[in-house]
């Protein structure tokens, strides 16, 4: 298993646990009083699960298992794979922090942090598609 795949999958596993912890927090507030911030965690919960866990696991496995790009570069452009990893995680972490804050006490700096997280994640998605497209081919 390539080093980058190990990073993707281990990070995905961390998000999996984190997502379920946020899920517990969302339900806990129905039983006991929690700060309003806890009530704004719904989108973070869903995206920790679908982007942090599911998508990141898929990216890691695809990088490892998809048909070879070429003999010299079997997994395409490795730097693009690492760029995907860095952008996706920077964007997702920034989102998980700034989105609930923006919901309970909106401020320009928090709003721009959220907008930046959108750009980072979008760039990660495009980098993954660009590096994967040519590897999806008939044998």
């Amino acid at each position, binding site marked *: 298993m390539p080093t980058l795949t190990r990073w993707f999958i281990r990070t995905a596993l961390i998000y999996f646990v984190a997502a379920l912890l946020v899920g517990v927090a969302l339900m806990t507030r129905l039983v006991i009083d929690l700060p309003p911030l806890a009530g704004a965690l719904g989108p973070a919960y869903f995206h920790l699960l*679908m982007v942090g866990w*599911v998508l990141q696991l*898929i990216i890691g496995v695809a990088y490892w298992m*998809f*048909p070879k790009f070429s003999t010299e570069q079997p997994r395409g452009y490795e730097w693009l794979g690492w760029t995907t990893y860095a952008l996706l995680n920077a964007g997702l972490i920034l*989102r998980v922090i*700034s*989105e609930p804050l*923006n919901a309970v006490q909106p401020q320009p700096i*928090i*709003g*721009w*942090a*959220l*907008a*930046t*997280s*959108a*750009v980072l*994640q*979008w760039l990660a*998605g*495009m980098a*993954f*598609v660009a590096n*994967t*497209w040519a590897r*999806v*081919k*008939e*044998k």
Partner: protein
Amino acid sequence: MPRLSVWLVRTALIYLASGFTFGALLLFHKGVPLSPALWQLLPMHIEFALIGWTVQLAMGVAFWILPRFAQRPIRGNETLAWLAYGLLNAGTLIVGLGQALGAPPTLLLAGRIFELLSVAAFATHAWPRVKPLGA
């Protein structure tokens, strides 16, 4: 990778790029408001990311990886799998675009039925391939 898997996975990648673009626009708008009309993209973001990308990718990889048969056709009834590809994409586009554009409910229902028929066709194709190696 067989031809149908190439079509399924590449189409899934297009949906991922589209779904990510709509999602990024919505998230950007949450932080720095651009236009309230952007919220109309939400159903397409959800439909494209969940059905167009995730479901279609799983179908593409399953068609490629599931055990094959010793005799031709080695991947079983490919017609059903191609039918699943067509129905899934028709359904995803109808439901995603239809919700965003305010299409009549009967059209949205038709889209969901296409998705259901797609999954039924794919399950029928895949069922006999879920077997021990060499069987």
